[in-house]
C-alpha cells in the first residue's frame, strides 16, 4: 500500500461518517468505536503512505515536488476545456499535514469518549468528527484547487455543525452562523481566485497552475489580484485580520472540537493553502507582502486581546489567532519551511492546551478564569501537562514551540526587516505574559469559586492519556529538525529535508539568537509572575489602571460591533430598501398597478356605454365617415 491509495484516507472516514450519521441509534455505544477504529486505520494507512513517500529520499535523491498519485475525472466539458480531476498530490507539505491531522484527530476522538460521555447526540458528534477529518484529509491530499475548495467547504460545514453542537443555546447557534458566514466571505474570494487562475491557465490542477505561473503565463497585475482573492480564503479560514472575529466565538463548540478544528487543523488550512501555492505567490511580491502584514497585524492584535480575555478557551483562541499570524508572517517572507514547522509544533501544544482546558471545564463546569484558581491540587496531571503546553507556547527551550517560533523570528530578521522582527518579538513576549496569566489564574492561587473547586476532580484516564501523549509530543516535536532524529525516524538525510523542502540548508541553530529569544520569553513569564502570582485581583487593577485601553481590548477593538453595525445598517438596510422596492414598485406599481390601471380605465370607459342607441348610431356614423375618407385617400 502506498501513495496511490492515499485517497483511502478520507474515504474510510467518509464511510464511517455515513454509517454513524445514519445508524448511530442502532450501534452499540452510538458508534464511537467505529469512528476511532476508522481513525486508527487511517493512521496505519497514512503511515504506509509516508513510508512510501520516504523512498523518494533514498540516497539523497531529492524530490521536492511530490507525486501526483491518483486521479479520476469528475467533470469534463469540451474534451479538456473544463476539467475537474479528482487528483491527489503527495509531497512533504502533505506528509506534515497528514501526520498532524491524524495524530491530533485520534487524540481528540479518544479524549472525547470521556469528555462527551453521556451527551445527547453523542453518535452525531462522532459522525461529524469523522466528516471533518475526512474533509480535512481530502483538503491536504488534493492536487486540484477545486477539490481543495470542495474539502475546504466540507471542513467549514463540519466546523459549523460542531460549533453549533449545543444549538439549544442561542449563543452557540449565533456563533456557528457567524463562523460560517465569516469564512464564507473569505471563500467567495477563494473561489474567485480559483476561477481567475483557471481563466488564464485553463486548469485547476495545482502543479499545472504553478508551472504556468513560473513560466510567466499570467500577467503581473492579474496574478496579484488573483492571489489576493485566493488569500482571502486563507484569511477567512485561518481567522486572520480582518476576518478573525469568528474564531473566539467558535469556542461555543465542545472543547475537544476547539482543540481539533479551531486550533490544530482546520484553522491552519489557510496556512496550508498559501504554502501550497507559494511558488505562485513568489511571482507576485505585493501579494506576499499582503500576507506578511496581515499576519503581523493579526499576531500582534490577537496577542493583546488575549491579555484581557477572561474565558480560558478564548485566551487560547486568541493565542491561536496570534500564532497563525506568526505562520503567515513566515509565509509572507517566503519561508514555507518555517511556517510549516510552526504549524507542526503548534498543532500539538495547542491541542494539548485546549484539551487541558477541556479537562478543567469538564471538572468545574466553569470556564471564566475569575471562577477558577488553585486547581493544581485537584488536577495534577492536567495542570502539569497544561504547564508544559504553556511553556511550549511561550517558547521556552527546548520545548517544541521554541524551535519553530525561533525559526520564524530568525526568518523575520534575515528575510524581513527590523520592524517586523521587533513586532514579532514583542508579540512573543506578550504571548509569554498571557500564557503565564492563564496558568496562574487557573491552577495557582486560591480557589475563587469554592463550589466549583470542591466539585473538581482529576479527569478519567481516557482523557488524561491523550494529554500525556500530547505533552510528550509538545516536548519532542521540535527535535525532528535535527538530522540524527530525522534519520532515526527513517528519513535518510534527516527530516530537515522533509520539512524544509525548499531550503534544506536553511535551518541553522544560532545560539546567541536562541538565547535572546529564550530570555525574552522568560522576561514575559517574569512579568506575568510578578503581576499575577497568587493575586487574581490584579486583573481588576488593570481595568482601573487604563480603563480605555482595557475596554478597547475586552471589546476586541470594537470590530465585532463594527461588523454588526455594517450588517444591521448597510446590509439589512439595503435589504429593507430592496424589499420595499419590490413591494411598492415592482408589485404594487408594476403588477397590481397595471391591473388597477386596467380596472381604472374600465371604470372610466364604462360611461361611454350610455345604453342610448342614438349615441351608438352616432359613433357608427363617425366610423362610416372615417372609413369613407380612408377609402377616398386610398383610391
Amino acid at each position, binding site marked *: 500500500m502506498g501513495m496511490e491509495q492515499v485517497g483511502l484516507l478520507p474515504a474510510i472516514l467518509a464511510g464511517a461518517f455515513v454509517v454513524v450519521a445514519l445508524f448511530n441509534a442502532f450501534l452499540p455505544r452510538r458508534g464511537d468505536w467505529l469512528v476511532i477504529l476508522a481513525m486508527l486505520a487511517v493512521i496505519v494507512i497514512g503511515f504506509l503512505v509516508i513510508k512510501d513517500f520516504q523512498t523518494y529520499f533514498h540516497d539523497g535523491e531529492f524530490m521536492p515536488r511530490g507525486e501526483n498519485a491518483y486521479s479520476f*475525472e*469528475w*467533470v*469534463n*466539458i*469540451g474534451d479538456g*476545456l*473544463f476539467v475537474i480531476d479528482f487528483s491527489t498530490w503527495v509531497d512533504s507539505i502533505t506528509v506534515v499535514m497528514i501526520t498532524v491531522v491524524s495524530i491530533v484527530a485520534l487524540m481528540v476522538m479518544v479524549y472525547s469518549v470521556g469528555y462527551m460521555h453521556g451527551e445527547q447526540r453523542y453518535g452525531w458528534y462522532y459522525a461529524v468528527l469523522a466528516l471533518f477529518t475526512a474533509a480535512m484529509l481530502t483538503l491536504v491530499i488534493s492536487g486540484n484547487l*477545486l477539490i481543495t*475548495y*470542495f*474539502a475546504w*467547504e*466540507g471542513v467549514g*460545514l463540519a466546523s459549523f455543525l460542531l460549533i*453549533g453542537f449545543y*444549538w*439549544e*443555546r*442561542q449563543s*452557540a*447557534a*449565533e456563533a*456557528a*452562523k457567524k463562523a*460560517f*458566514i465569516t469564512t*464564507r*466571505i473569505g*471563500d*467567495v474570494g477563494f*473561489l*474567485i481566485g480559483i*476561477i*481567475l487562475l*483557471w*481563466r488564464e491557465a485553463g486548469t485547476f490542477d495545482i502543479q499545472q497552475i504553478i508551472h504556468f505561473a513560473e513560466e510567466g503565463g499570467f500577467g503581473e497585475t492579474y496574478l496579484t489580484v488573483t492571489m489576493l482573492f485566493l488569500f482571502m480564503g486563507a484569511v477567512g479560514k485561518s481567522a486572520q485580520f480582518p476576518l478573525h472575529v469568528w474564531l473566539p466565538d467558535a469556542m461555543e463548540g465542545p472543547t475537544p472540537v476547539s482543540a481539533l478544528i479551531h486550533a490544530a487543523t482546520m484553522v491552519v488550512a489557510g496556512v496550508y493553502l498559501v504554502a501550497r501555492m507559494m511558488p505562485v505567490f513568489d511571482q507576485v511580491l505585493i501579494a506576499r507582502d499582503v500576507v506578511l502584514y496581515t499576519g503581523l497585524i493579526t499576531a500582534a492584535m490577537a496577542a493583546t486581546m488575549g491579555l484581557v480575555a477572561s474565558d480560558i478557551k478564548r485566551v487560547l483562541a486568541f493565542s491561536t489567532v496570534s500564532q497563525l499570524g506568526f505562520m503567515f508572517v513566515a509565509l509572507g517572507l517566503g519561508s514555507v519551511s518555517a511556517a510549516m514547522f510552526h504549524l507542526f509544533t503548534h498543532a500539538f501544544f495547542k491541542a494539548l492546551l485546549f484539551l487541558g482546558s477541556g479537562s478543567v471545564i469538564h471538572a468545574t463546569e466553569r470556564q471564566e478564569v475569575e471562577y477558577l484558581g488553585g486547581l493544581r491540587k485537584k488536577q495534577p496531571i492536567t495542570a502539569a501537562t497544561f504547564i508544559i503546553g504553556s511553556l511550549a507556547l511561550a517558547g521556552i527551550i527546548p520545548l517544541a514551540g521554541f524551535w519553530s517560533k525561533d525559526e520564524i523570528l530568525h526568518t523575520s530578521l534575515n528575510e524581513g526587516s527590523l520592524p517586523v522582527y521587533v513586532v514579532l518579538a514583542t508579540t512573543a513576549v506578550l504571548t509569554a505574559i498571557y500564557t503565564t496569566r492563564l496558568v496562574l489564574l487557573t491552577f495557582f492561587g486560591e480557589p475563587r469559586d469554592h463550589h466549583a473547586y470542591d466539585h473538581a476532580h482529576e479527569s478519567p484516564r481516557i482523557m488524561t492519556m491523550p494529554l500525556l501523549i500530547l505533552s510528550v509530543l509538545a516536548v519532542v516535536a521540535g527535535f525532528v529538525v535535527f538530522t540524527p532524529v530525522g534519520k532515526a525516524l527513517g528519513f535518510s538525510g534527516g527530516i530537515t529535508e522533509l520539512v524544509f523542502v525548499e531550503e534544506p540548508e536553511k535551518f541553522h541553530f544560532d545560539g546567541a539568537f536562541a538565547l535572546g529569544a529564550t530570555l525574552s520569553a522568560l522576561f514575559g513569564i517574569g512579568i506575568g509572575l510578578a503581576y499575577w502570582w497568587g493575586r487574581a485581583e490584579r486583573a481588576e487593577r488593570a481595568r482601573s489602571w487604563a480603563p480605555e485601553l482595557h475596554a478597547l481590548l475586552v471589546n476586541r477593538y470594537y470590530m465585532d460591533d463594527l461588523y454588526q453595525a455594517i450588517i444591521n445598517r448597510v*446590509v*439589512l438596510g*439595503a*435589504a*429593507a430598501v*430592496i*424589499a420595499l422596492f*419590490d413591494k411598492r414598485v*415592482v*408589485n404594487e406599481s*408594476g*403588477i*397590481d398597478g397595471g*391591473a388597477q390601471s386596467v380596472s381604472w380605465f374600465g371604470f372610466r370607459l364604462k360611461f361611454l356605454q350610455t345604453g342610448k342607441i342614438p349615441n351608438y348610431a352616432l359613433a357608427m356614423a363617425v366610423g362610416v365617415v372615417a372609413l369613407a375618407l380612408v377609402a377616398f385617400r386610398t383610391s
Partner: protein
Amino acid sequence: MSSNDGYLLLALFLIPLGTAVLLMFVPSRERGAIIALTGAASFVLFVLSVYLFSRFDYEGAQFQGVKAWTWMENIGFLGEKGIQLKVGLDGIAAPMVLLTGIITMAGTWVSWKIQHRTKDFFILLYVLVAGVYGTFVMLDLFFFFLLYETAVLPMYLLIAVWGSTRKEYGAMKLMMMLVAASILIFTGIFAIFSEAGLASFDLTRLFGAHYDPTMQKIFFPMIAIGCGTLGGMFPFHAWSPDGHAAAPTAVSMLHAGVLMKLGAFGIIRLGFQILPEGAAFWAPGLITVGITAALYGAISALRQTDLKLMSGFSSVSHMGYVFMGLGTLNVVGMSGAVLQMFAHGVMTALFFLLIGGLYDQSHNRDIPNFSGMAKQMPIWSIFFIIGGMASLGLPGLSGFVAELHIFVGTFRAYPIVGGLAVLTAAITATYLLRMFSQAFFGEMNPRWSGLKEITWTERAGATVLVLSILALGLWPSPWVDRISTTLAHTIPGVSL
C-alpha cells in the same frame, strides 16, 4: 437510445393524461383507489424518466428517440408535415425529464394528505404533469406551445381552490402574468413560423431554417420575456413569491421545481436554438437581468419573514443564475444554467415540501415565530438544512456543481459579473443561516410543542429529493456530459 424509445417518450405524457382521465371515473370516496392509482402512475413515470435519462446516449448531440405521427398537413397555411405529434429527447430535455419524474413522485406522495376534493386535485395535477412532460419531449412547435399552456393553466384552479394565504390574489396574479407572457411567446412562435417559410411546425426543421438577423433581434426578447416570466425572470418575477406563498405544497413543488424550468427551457429551445443570432445580440441583456435578479432576490430574501416568501425570492435569485448562465454564450456557463435548472428544481421542491409539512400542522410560516424547531422536528430540520446547504452552494451538493459552472462561464465572459455572482452566494448563505439560527436552533418555543415530525410519505419524498441533490453534487458527469454535448453542437455561435 433507439427510435423505439420514442414510444416511451410519448408514454411520458400519455400516462399522466391517462391517469387524469382514469381518475375522473374513480368515485371520490375511494381514497384508497386514488392513492393506488396516483402512486402507481407516479412510480411508473419516475422509473420511465430514470430509464430514459440513463438510456440517453450522451455522445450524441442530436435528438434521440425521434418518433412522429402526422396530425395536420396540407391544410390551409400548413404544408406537408405541417403539424405532427413528434417526440424526441436531447441532452437538455433529458435532465428535465428526470427532474419531472423525481418531483412528480415526491409531489404525489406528499399530496395524499390532502383531504379536500382529493380526486379533483389529482386530476388537475396530472394534467399539469402531462403538460410539463409533453413540453419537454415535443419536437413540434404547435404541440410545444399547446402543452406549455396545458402545464400552466391548471395552476389557477390548483392555487385558487387548494391554496392558502391570499390564494385568490396569488392565483390571479400568477395566471394574469403568465397568460400575458404567453401572448408574447405566441407572437414569437408565429413570427418564427412565417419567417422560416417552411409551412411546418416541425422543430427539427425550424432549427435549420434561415431567419433574418433583424427579425431575430426583434423576436428573441419577446420569447425571452415570455418564457422568462414563467421562469421568474426579474423584473417579471412578481408572481413568484405570492404565487408560491399561496400554492398548496405539491403545486409549489411542481411549480418552482419544474414549471419555472419550463420557462428557461423555452428560452433555450425557442430562443437559443432557433434564433441564435438574436440570442447572441441579447446575451449581455440576459447577463444583466440574471445578475440583477440573483442579487435582488438574495437581498430581498434577507428581509423576508415568511418561509415561503423567502423561498420564493430565493427562487428568483437562483433562476437569475440560470439566465446569467445562458447569457454567457459558452458551453460551461450554459451547461451550468441547465444544471442549475435541475439543481434548483430539486432543492426548491425539497424546501416547499418541508415548508408544507410544517404549515399543515402549525398554520404558521413566520420565521420569527419559530425557535428551536430542531428539537421538536429533528428529521424535518435535517432535511431542511441539507436543502439550505445545497441552496447556498456547499460542495458535494447539487447547487455547487451548477453554480460553479455558471461562475466559471461568467468569469470567462464577464469577470466582474462573475465576481458579483460569487458574492451572491455569500448573501444566500447569510439569509439561510439567519433563518436556521432563528428557526431551528436556540431554545424551543413551547407554543409548538404539539407539532409532530413530518409524515412517512413526506420523509420518503424528501429522501428521494435529497438523494437527487447528493447524486448531482457528488457525481455530476452523467448530467454534465449530456448537457454539454447537446449545447455545444446544437446552438450555433456558442463557444466552448
